[in-house]
């Protein structure tokens, strides 16, 4: 079924009773050409682009929970590409270039809204770092500009720029093309597109083991729904990547931490952009429902608890109330955590592994949502052809041996 004005009108006249399922929830077949472990945005996008651009449709996407129920459904939906190094600008820029056309491409409204992203500088170090990012981005053709506190307040009128506050705003880097998108819709849209091309999306199917043949290459997986064989496996398991890779006997340069977020009660429109502050671990935007969506920091220790310590959220809210005094009496409706897989250089890993047939896409850490289309697109190429393209190549596992790290600690926006 194609969404169009005519189909919307026809369904409206019938009382919205005839909307079909948007994608098939499949049961596993005994064998596939490719297994993708993890039905979040990145895994579903990988399956979608493999089917669309590489003609590989005999794919199973295995998900231990429900579709998009991990970090895809838990993030703060921010889209931007103002990273420092050329390799990062290439991959985040590639993703950013796919966002504006994504709703048309998928025939599914992902509610992409390039409303602008302000990154606040609160001290001299922030200012020097962000100015460097502005210049690097402009050399790479990525829009980014330096704003004075007054100019930042013009962009976001509820911002407090009083120089006497504890974390005064000294200025801001502004990426006017950054913004937000609807996280669930991204997962659903890719699931719908992949399913329509023959991909099986199998929920409640936890991978228990990765099986290997005599040569050491992968031969399939053992799951809670029985064994499934495949010659290629792509692991896109975010915070649980280390757990899955251990099934193939591999350690990873990853540590998993809880990252928290909150939403407030809904308000009338008060916030026309996204505001982020690295120094105080707080960022905020307003959803289309009117809730203020607030991102907090990570806990200090590795954990798979999907909650996070209350003192982390409290310190974020203290900073939010100071930056945006109108929020001081606002009630928070929900607070949750997601498990983020962070690398030593805060850049992702899109790579072959020492195990033939096993590929991994992980390490997006605290900021993977923005990269979903680009990540899926280049990882599909890697799994389908067996070799990374020019965008994915710098993000190999081997960079930790060669020392060619892509250090994005300052651009990752959440201090660790």
């Amino acid at each position, binding site marked *: 079924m194609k969404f169009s004005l005519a189909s919307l009108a026809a369904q409206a006249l019938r009382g919205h009773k005839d909307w079909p399922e948007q994608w098939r929830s499949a049961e596993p077949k005994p064998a596939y050409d490719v297994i993708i472990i993890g039905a979040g945005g990145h895994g579903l996008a990988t399956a979608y682009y493999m089917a669309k651009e590489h003609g590989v449709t005999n794919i199973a996407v295995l998900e231990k929970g429900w579709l998009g129920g991990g970090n895809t459904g838990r993030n703060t939906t921010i889209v931007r590409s103002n990273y420092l190094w050329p390799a990062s600008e290439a991959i985040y820029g590639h993703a950013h270039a796919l966002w504006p056309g994504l709703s048309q491409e998928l025939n599914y409204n992902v509610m992409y809204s390039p409303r602008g992203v302000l990154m606040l500088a609160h001290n001299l170090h922030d200012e020097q770092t962000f100015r460097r990012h502005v210049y690097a981005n402009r050399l790479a053709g990525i829009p980014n500009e330096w704003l004075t506190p007054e100019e930042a307040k013009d962009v976001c009128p509820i911002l407090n720029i009083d120089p006497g506050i504890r974390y005064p705003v000294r200025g801001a880097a502004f990426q006017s093309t950054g913004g937000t998108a609807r996280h669930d819709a991204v997962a659903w849209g890719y699931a719908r597109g992949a399913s329509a091309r023959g991909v099986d999306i199998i929920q409640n199917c936890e991978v228990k083991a990765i099986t290997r043949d005599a040569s050491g290459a992968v031969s399939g997986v053992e799951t809670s729904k029985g064994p499934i064989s495949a010659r290629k496996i792509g692991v896109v398991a975010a915070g649980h990547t*280390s757990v899955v890779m251990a099934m193939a006997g591999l*350690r990873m340069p990853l540590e998993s931490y809880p990252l928290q977020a909150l939403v407030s009660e809904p308000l009338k429109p008060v916030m026309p952009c996204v505001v982020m502050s690295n120094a105080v671990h707080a960022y905020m935007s307003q959803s289309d429902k009117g809730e203020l969506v607030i991102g907090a920091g990570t806990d200090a*220790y590795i954990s798979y*608890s999907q909650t996070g310590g209350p003192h982390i959220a409290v310190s974020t809210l203290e900073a939010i109330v100071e930056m945006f005094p109108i929020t001081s009496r606002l009630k928070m409706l929900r607070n949750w955590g997601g498990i983020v897989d962070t690398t030593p250089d805060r850049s992702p890993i899109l790579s072959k592994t020492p195990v033939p047939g096993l590929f991994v896409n992980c390490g997006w850490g605290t900021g993977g949502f923005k990269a979903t289309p680009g990540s899926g697109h280049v990882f599909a190429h890697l799994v389908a052809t067996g070799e990374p393209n020019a965008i994915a190549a710098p993000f190999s596992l081997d960079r930790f041996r060669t020392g060619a790290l892509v250090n994005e600690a300052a651009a990752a926006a959440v201090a660790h």
Partner: protein
Amino acid sequence: MLLIRCPYCEMERPEVEFKYGGQAHLVRAPETATDEEWTDFLYFRDNLKGVHAERWRHASGCGRFFNALRNTVSDKFVVTYKAGEARPSSP
């Protein structure tokens, strides 16, 4: 917030007094290490889901490093023990 027992102070103190120090019992790669061994020592970690041996430092207390076994699913500490002691057997 977690309550953590410092094995030197012999007191349970709030988490904010402590700094996390990553996986415990890592042995520094020798000078003769290959690139692969050095990489493994520097960057690769177990990142366990379950009982994890890890270093902590009582930064706002006695300042000393110690080790702990903690369940990374429930975040509950099994036991804390002094640096240099062998890892206790865990349930």
